[in-house]
């Protein structure tokens, strides 16, 4: 429905997690109060990172979300590997 709302929901959730003290229960993501369609709500509630990426959530927010969910470094790559990427083009720094 709204990419802004979608991203704000995840962003606010990440901010909420920052305030959680060590050892305290981790809150679940709530979509209440955000204007999201069914598919967006499903993606967020189930933590479907591939869908979040496909919907246009900024990669920096995706990265923060994956880190908060316990992924480290690049180990969430497998969640995104089936997503299309732009074909690489020749750049000025390439020698081959």
């Amino acid at each position: 429905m709204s990419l802004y709302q979608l991203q704000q929901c995840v962003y606010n959730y990440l901010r909420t997690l920052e305030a959680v003290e060590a050892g305290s229960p981790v809150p679940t993501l709530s979509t209440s109060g955000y204007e999201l369609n069914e598919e967006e709500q499903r993606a967020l509630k189930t933590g479907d990172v591939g869908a979040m990426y496909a919907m246009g959530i900024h990669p920096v927010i995706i990265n923060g979300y994956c880190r908060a969910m316990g992924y480290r470094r690049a180990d969430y790559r497998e969640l995104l590997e089936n997503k299309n990427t732009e074909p690489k083009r020749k750049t000025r720094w390439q020698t081959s």
Partner: protein
Amino acid sequence: MADIVMAYGASHAPMMTADPESAPDAQAENFFGALETVREKAAAAGVQAVVMMSGEHFSNFFYDNLPQIVIGLGEGHVGPREKWLKVPEVLVPGEPGLASHLLAETIAAGFQPALSHKMVADHGFMTVYYKLDPQMRLPMVPIVMNCTQPPLMTLRHAYDFGAAVGDAIRSYPGLERVALCAAGGLSHFVGEPRVGDIDEEFDRWFLKQLESDAPPELLDMPNDELMEAGNGTGEVRSWVALAGAMRGHAAKALVYEPIYEWINGMGVVTYDPDPVGAPA
């Protein structure tokens, strides 16, 4: 008037403090060794404050208000935002006099930086700052650049802004010895299918461009071409701004290590505090 007695760029991968042991020993030693060289030189030079330029990571701003450039005017800056960074949370002292001067002078030079009295210092600042001053008492002026959400500043725009920052530091009467630091880059990919990749060819080329006084070949590169080196690589805008501030000074890459365990090309470049041709 202030002199820029230390000028350097350094990568700011969160893993360099959150999980430094994950890197191969030799690579980590080379990178941290270069940062230690910087720390020793800064201490020997008696640096009184550091101006740090880093990219935004949705740490201070979101889509409701996302400026291209922000200068932190606060008396202090809480950091780091990330608890897992393994850097103690502190109130980093600010340097409001210098910050206000930078704001006024860069606006006078034709730029429109925003201002903030309540800046949070995220990993972009704190990883590098912690290595510069492990006691975290050195006053800092943070400058946040939007390297995240297009439309983004061109590299030439970043260079010109940096030139204005350098001129402003050198016209500040309140301090004598200031460090200027660019934190971010080098190549990295986050939150997308290529997460974990490093464009080593770009990194080595980029460092050579800096050592060649940032020629038009670098400054006129379109933003979409730069993006080919990684969606996080745009953070090199701060390095290019540093090059603008230090135009006429020789740059030297102290180290480059592609550390895949930190998902980042890790480099350090320093600038000679004396201009090229100055008497030794």
